[in-house]
């Protein structure tokens, strides 16, 4: 006999004018190695087929299933019920637009984010199909991969007080993406180009250092270190620029 589990799940269907946001309870008996993926699917198939939530890979790699689990954003598919108390509260991620119940629209948000940080290699080189690839040290490749591991789940955004207050705030995932391209020698962008993208109050200077992002990221991306690096780089760039402007001969030093 497994533990009896009680799930309090947020219910609201914005498409239905008659729907009002409320919490609804469901009961299940816990089974071995039960995850929220298994539990939610059982609830949908056995109790309420209208329950909305998102799963895709159910293996912690696609980022679909982030939700607020007892108040913390995390991936539902890798959350074992064994690690939770017998009463489990599930809410949709805040900040993102609600589609229904536990399902939110992360797709639009992240596409917008990717456009905003121009998340692609900027180069004026042209691909030559007959030439060997540009060389790179394996160490650097690993470092880039470390930041590239973000799965765009949105947990860091949901856990960020600033993003909750200011919907236009870029969020740690965006800063991480910028940092990833900054360290990539294939990208020819200069500090000024990045400056224009992130050095605003909706960007890195809006970050309050709350570190919710750092503490919830299910992929354990070193977000804190990227945020600090970015602010320092951007801050110094502006100070250097100021000195160049006010000190005599400063402008000449620039390329």
């Amino acid at each position: 006999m497994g533990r009896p589990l009680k799930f309090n799940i947020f219910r609201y269907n914005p498409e239905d004018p008659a729907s009002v946001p409320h919490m609804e309870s469901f009961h299940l008996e816990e089974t071995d190695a039960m995850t929220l993926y298994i539990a939610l699917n059982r609830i949908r198939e056995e109790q309420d087929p209208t329950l909305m939530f998102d799963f895709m890979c159910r293996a912690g790699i696609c980022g679909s299933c982030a939700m607020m689990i007892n108040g913390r954003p995390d991936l539902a598919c890798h959350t074992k019920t064994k690690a939770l108390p017998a009463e489990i509260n599930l809410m949709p991620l805040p900040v993102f637009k609600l589609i229904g119940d536990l399902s939110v629209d992360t797709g639009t948000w992240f596409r917008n984010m990717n456009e905003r940080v121009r998340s692609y290699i900027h180069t004026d080189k042209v691909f030559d199909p007959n030439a060997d690839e540009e060389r790179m040290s394996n160490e650097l490749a690993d470092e880039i991969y470390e930041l590239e591991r973000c799965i765009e789940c949105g947990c860091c955004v949901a856990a960020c007080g600033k993003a909750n207050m200011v919907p236009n705030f870029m969020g740690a995932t965006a800063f991480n993406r910028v940092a990833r391209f900054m360290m990539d020698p294939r990208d020819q962008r200069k500090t000024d180009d990045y400056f224009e993208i992130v050095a605003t109050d909706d960007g890195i200077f809006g970050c309050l250092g709350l570190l919710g992002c750092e503490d919830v990221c299910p992929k354990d991306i070193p977000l804190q270190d990227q945020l600090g690096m970015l602010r320092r780089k951007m801050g110094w760039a502006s100070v250097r620029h100021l000195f160049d402007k006010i000190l005599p001969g400063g402008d000449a030093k620039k390329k």
Partner: protein
Amino acid sequence: MMSDQTAVAQVQPVRTEAYLDFLQMLSGVALVMFMWAHMILVASVNLDLGGGRVMNWIAHFFEATYMAQIGGPMIALVMLAHFVLAARKLPFKAREQKEMWRHSVRLNHLDTWLWVIQAVTAFIILIMGCIHMWTVLTDLPITAQKSGARIQGGWWMLFYIFLLPMIELHVGIGAYRIGVKWGWIKRSNRQFFHGLENKITLIFITIGVITLFTFYVLVKPM
């Protein structure tokens, strides 16, 4: 097909927000430095067990060199500037405040609470700090005896006992968060600095309490 980034690079980005954030950090650092120095000044009254010779000497030094007369208002100005700069990050709209509060309660996450504490203490400090500075600076020179008299009046004692932890929390958290925001505190050493922040805050509150005790009990008012 290739990107247009070369064209983009020609346009100089707007830098205002970068400057302001930088100044916010500088004002923060300056105020932290001041508060610690201020604590040393005030706590010097303990050195001769409330006799006041050391404190009076230091106070006299500052006044004789006009550092108190000029520095006092300067500090007030920095504080004002700091307030204006930092307040840009504060939620003034009701919706924002509500969201932030809801978020903090829901997430129940230490560093988020730290920020909330800082934001709340900021307002308390702004008001109480101004009252305090006005009182002290309009009644120069500073002497241990005068201060003792003020504090032994009772109301000022309460005033300081309340203000002290506010200040130390705001300052300690502020210093920690400057480290975080500007990348000096990293994932690898965050635990250490977090502990350090707690210790420093505690130490300063202890010194402050001892000092207040000295003023209240040991100092002979004029």
